């Protein structure tokens, strides 16, 4: 029987709006790595060896060109790594059993908002202080936008990744789109 075909939450949405660009990112695996009780040190080493990244801290993500690690809870890390066939196995290959690994790829919709007016647009939806002196590059936070649980990461000066639950992806996109349109 044929392999199942995939769809993404927003069918690969990608639009220029004013001086900004808003697009869906679909080429990532998302996995949660729960840190076993008293297992942080072991995981830290495994991440260093297996993913060549250092441990993220509560507000600061660590990243290289391909991958990014976020601290999403005091004992939980999110890994954003290149899309593979089986996210859990891919991460397990890298870090072994140093964390409880759970595939989250399909649980989230991932948007990227870039362009000079991005921060102004986000003022309409994100209650966090995104001033570049306060919310620096690679900083991340979980928060709420238009009543939807969300994550925000600053990946560059004018570039932000915005994540929310995949089931309400269309509502989330609408909320971000409106914010962008209102300031463009």
């Amino acid at each position: 029987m044929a392999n199942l075909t995939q769809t993404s939450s927003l069918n690969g949405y990608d639009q220029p709006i004013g001086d900004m660009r808003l697009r869906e990112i679909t080429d990532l695996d998302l996995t949660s790595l729960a840190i076993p009780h008293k297992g942080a040190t072991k995981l830290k080493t495994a991440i260093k060896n297996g993913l060549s990244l250092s441990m993220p801290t509560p507000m600061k993500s660590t990243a290289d060109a391909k991958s990014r690690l976020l601290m999403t809870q005091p004992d939980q890390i999110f890994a954003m790594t290149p899309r593979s066939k089986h996210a859990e196995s891919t991460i397990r290959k890298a870090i072994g059993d140093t964390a409880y690994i759970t595939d989250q790829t399909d649980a989230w919709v991932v948007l990227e908002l870039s362009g000079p007016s991005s921060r102004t647009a986000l003022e309409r939806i994100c209650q966090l202080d995104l001033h570049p002196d306060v919310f620096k590059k690679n900083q991340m936070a979980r928060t709420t936008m238009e009543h939807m649980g969300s994550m925000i990461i600053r990946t560059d000066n004018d570039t932000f990744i915005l994540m929310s639950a995949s089931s309400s992806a269309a509502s989330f996109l609408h909320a971000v789109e409106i914010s962008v349109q209102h300031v463009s």
Partner: protein
Amino acid sequence: MIINHPLLGPRDANEFIHLGDASLINRPDGMADDAAEKFHDYLYLRDNPAGEYRELWYHDAGDRSWLVVTRNTLTHEISSVEMARDVARKQGRSK
């Protein structure tokens, strides 16, 4: 209101859900002989102070931490915010 999360810094209270008295951490042993009595007190007897109050808040739209927030019920001044897990351990809870 703003809750100064020990790990994440100041956050709007709208990211949190309020539960109530921090004494809810002190859950009695259900297998003890006087369990029924203890649970009654645990669940139904609460102080209602005009002043400093320790209460549980959950960072629902954040890192899912339970926090113990010490808030003055007269002024809303928040004098301390602790990770509830640390508080629980300090109070002798384990498994």
